[in-house]
Every structure is written in C-alpha cells, then in structure tokens.
C-alpha cells in the first residue's frame, strides 16, 4: 500500500504543518512516512505545496510526488487554479476542497478526470473556532474522514505533540468538526 498526498495552500496558512501532522499521525499507526515541504522563496500569501507519502512498506524513494492519490486544497481561493490543483491526480483519486461550493470549472474537470470531489467549509469552521482563517487542521480532519487511512485519534495525538493549551484544544475541535462536516459533492 502506498498513498501519496499533495497539499495546496498559501504561505502562512500552515500547509507544511498539515502535511507534517499527517505524517506524524501515520507514523503513530506504524506506517512508513515521508513528508516534504516544497521550498522556494518564502512569501506570505504565495501558493505553497507540501507532500506526504504513506506506506506499509519501507519508503526508499526520494523523488517528488507527481501523481497523487489525494489532493487537499487548504486555501478557498485556490480552486480557481483548477489546472494546478488537479494536475496529475490519479483516476479514482480524491480532491478535497475548502469551499462552500465548488466552481464550475472544478466540477467539469473532476468529471473529465474521473476523480471524487469532497467539500468542507473550513473557512466557516476556522472563523467560528479561531476567529481567524486557520484552515490547516480542519482540512486535516476532513482528509482523515475522506480517506479513512488513519484514525482521527492518531491525528489528534499528533496535534498534542505539536500544540498545547487553548491552541491545542481549538485545533482539535476544528479538526473534529471538519471531520464531521466534510461531504462528498454529488456531481450534477
């Protein structure tokens, strides 16, 4: 088993943290992991990616991920970059968006590529919980539900290693809420 994940977001949104927390959670469940942030000049607001590789076998390969099984788009405005976010996503793969509703262009492309689309309003969750647009842990919660790859408890445990106090509690709450609220988008 090998699952490859690509995360999209913008600088400052915790894209790298989501990927890292996923890797740590998978590690807690005994999987082999590789988490790699994509580095260029670090600019707040610029599109950023991160990659997670999870396997039940040793991961020897150190090349980039070009054909992910899952793409998670943390930033709600990035769905307009339809080409970019869907590049290489495998047939039967999963696209998870932070959105109230997917754009027309995304829906069309999703049909064409025969992938599954999932939507969660992580913006609303973030504003309710943090009062600020922190989407990364909710989107990790959504990922956990959609893929069923690892347990939510493991994700929450990985968060405990990273955060503490009120921040931890809020992140856990936001992740759980997105876990409950994410839904498959039924294509029209």
């Amino acid at each position, binding site marked *: 088993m090998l699952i490859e994940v690509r995360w999209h977001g913008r600088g400052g949104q915790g894209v790298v943290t989501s990927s*890292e927390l996923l*890797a*740590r959670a998978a*590690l807690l469940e005994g999987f*082999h*992991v*590789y*988490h*790699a*942030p994509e*580095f260029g000049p670090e600019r707040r607001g610029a599109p950023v990616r991160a990659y997670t590789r999870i396997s039940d076998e040793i*991961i*020897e*390969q*150190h*090349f*980039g991920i*070009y054909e992910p099984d899952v793409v998670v788009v943390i930033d709600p405005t990035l769905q307009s970059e339809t080409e970019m976010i869907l590049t290489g996503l495998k047939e039967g793969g999963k696209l998870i968006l932070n959105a109230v509703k997917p754009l027309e262009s995304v829906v069309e492309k999703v049909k064409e590529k025969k992938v599954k689309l999932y939507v969660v309003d992580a913006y609303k969750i973030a504003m309710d919980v943090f009062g600020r647009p922190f989407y990364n842990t909710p989107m990790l919660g959504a990922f956990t539900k959609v893929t069923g790859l690892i347990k939510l408890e493991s994700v929450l445990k990985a968060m405990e290693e990273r955060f503490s106090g009120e921040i931890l509690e809020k992140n856990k709450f936001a992740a759980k809420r997105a876990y409950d609220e994410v839904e498959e988008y039924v294509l029209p």
Partner: protein
Amino acid sequence: MRGRLIGLNGDTAVAYAVKQADVDVIAAYPITPQTIIVEKLSEFVNNGELNAAFVPVESEHSALSASVGAALTGARVFTATASQGLALMYEILWIASSLRATVVMALGNRAFSAPINIHCSHDDAYAARDTGWIEFFAENVQEAYDLTLQAFKVSEDKQVLLPSIVNLDGFILTHSLEGLYVLDDKDVREFLPPKEPVYPVDPEHPVTYGPLDLYDYYIEHKRQQAEAMRNSYSTILKVFEEYSEFTGRKYEPIKTYGIEDAEVAIAILGSSAGTARYVARKLRKEGKKVGVISFTLYRPFPASELRKLTRGLKALAVMDRSYSFGSPGAQLFMDIAATLFNEKERPLLFNIIYGLGGRDLKPEHVEYVFDKAFEVAETGETPESEIWIGVRE
C-alpha cells in the same frame, strides 16, 4: 531495532544526535539548508538540555577556526554548513585535518553559486574530498542521525584523529520528515564515551601546533597524514560493526542491491540511492539483472571493496550530482575509474550528470540510465562524454 521511533526532519535528527553526543563546543554560522541544525542546537544550549559553549561566529571561516581551536584543547566539537559556507571554510578544512583536530561537521548538501541556488548538488561534498576529512553520505534521515553519532566515535579514535563530514542532501533530507529510531541518552553514552584528548593545548604543558615546516619535514608530515587517512578505514569498519551490533541497523562502507548477479549497475551517492533501488526492484521483477551501489563512506574511498563488488558487472553507470569543469569525468566517476583501471576484470564505465540544483531524479530517469547501461554492455561501446539527464534541451 534499538531505540524509540519518532518523526524528525534530517536537520533536527542531526541536532538531536549532536545533543546526545554531549558535545562541548558548537561553533557554527547558519546557512540554508543546514540552518535548522544550528537553530535547534542553540535552543538545546539555551534551555539547558545541552551543556555546551555555543559560539555564534560571524562567518564560516571563523566557525571552523573556532572549532579547530576548541578541538585541540580536547573538546568534543561540532559545526555545520552548506555550499558557500563550506567554500568559505576551505582554507581551514586543510588546517583542521592537518592539525588532527577531530571536528565533526554536518554538510547540508547544496549547489555552489552562481546562479544562487539553495537546493541539492554534491558540489560542497566533493569540494572537501581532497582536504583530509573523512566523509560519510546519509541516504535517509535515520542514517543522518546514526552517522553523526558514528562520526564522533571514528574521528576521536586514537588511531584516526581526523575530522569527519556527514553529508545529507539539502531539502530532500534536511527539511523532510521521516520516521527514525533514536537511542536513549544512556545508550549513546555507552557507545560514545567522553572524548579522550591527545596532546591537548594546555597552558601548564605547552605544545606547538602548526609551526613552519618547509622542505625539511613537510613531505614526511603529509606522508603521515596520508597513512592516517588510509588507516582510518579499519577503525571505520570497527565502528560500523560495533554500531550495527548495538542498534541492529547495519552499516557498511558500500551498500549494494542485486550486485551478486547483476549485469549492469548504477553507482550513486546520497538520497537518490533509494530512488535507484526503487527502480531496480521494479526492473528485477521484469527479469532484468540490475544492481545499485551506493557509498555510505566516501573518504577514505572504499576502493578494494568496490573492486570486489564490480567483478561480475558488464557496465556501470556512475552518477554524479555535480560537475567538474574541463575534467575527463565528474568526481565519483573519476574515483571509480581510477579504482578499477588496473583490474583485469572490470565493467565498462560511463558518467551520468543529474539533479544539479535540486532537479528531481525521477524513476524514468533511472530507467533510462539502466537502459543505457544495457546498451553499453551489449555493444561494448561507451558514450564519448558524460550524459546529462533531466535537462531541458
């Protein structure tokens, strides 16, 4: 497997090993992609987890100068750098090894400027190859951790007394998280007891280091240094063996895959070795007899081991993540060509240039190299010059 499984990136794993090695002095200047190592170590010192002197120097030249001085007083010393930082240390690299200063350095491999690039090439690792430092290459985060601990043991051994570099590919390992087993502090102390100084600089018992040494004795001293480097090999084997037994993680100067019956093989350094093996496993399933040779130890170069391993091979593709301008071949290629030239039974060699400045080495690139190797083996003809792969024409 001895130790506790945790997730760390390569830089943090190195810093953790350095903390457990209980170093006395750290003198380093931050430079991408090694910065996290220096940051973590300064944190460890600041919060009292590590009782060491952290010297925040103003340049890499000073970082290594301070490290050499500290090592000669008998301290256990660590520094880290990358790319331009190593270039700035160059003068002191030779002095460190020639004064037998047992500094351990992590090198987050990064391309030399210009143009400015922060990603992986092996330019810096190769720039140090002639300087009298022992050089190790980590393939993954676990090895970056393990080799850092072993480097102290090797360097400080009284039969060796030479500085060591642990190479880890910039970003691919320095900034990427993998699972690894870390030892308990107690186990590290057992494997790596405190350094026992040899002829330390001490005001009560004055000694002279680095005096003028002209044509009367210089060549004898260089000859001794050459012997020291050559002799370090047996200590390295001993330390590898001891560590393998201690941890259950096997360390050898050269790692191989499929070499026993391979017709063609790739020779490679660093994190791409795993990618090469990943492809080789796939090709093996298709019945192709391919192999991979990767070097955990680069200096001293494990020449006699390599001669034994390459005996049955028809063609060997030597892959360099650097380029030696105007040279008959890049650096690893020349090492291997020189090693095998006098062998009666030896493979045909050709040189591949890949991955400069972080350009990704993809499985299809590796497949191309194996195909090329079969072509060379069948036709008996080698390419006139090196082949660049993954390059837009």
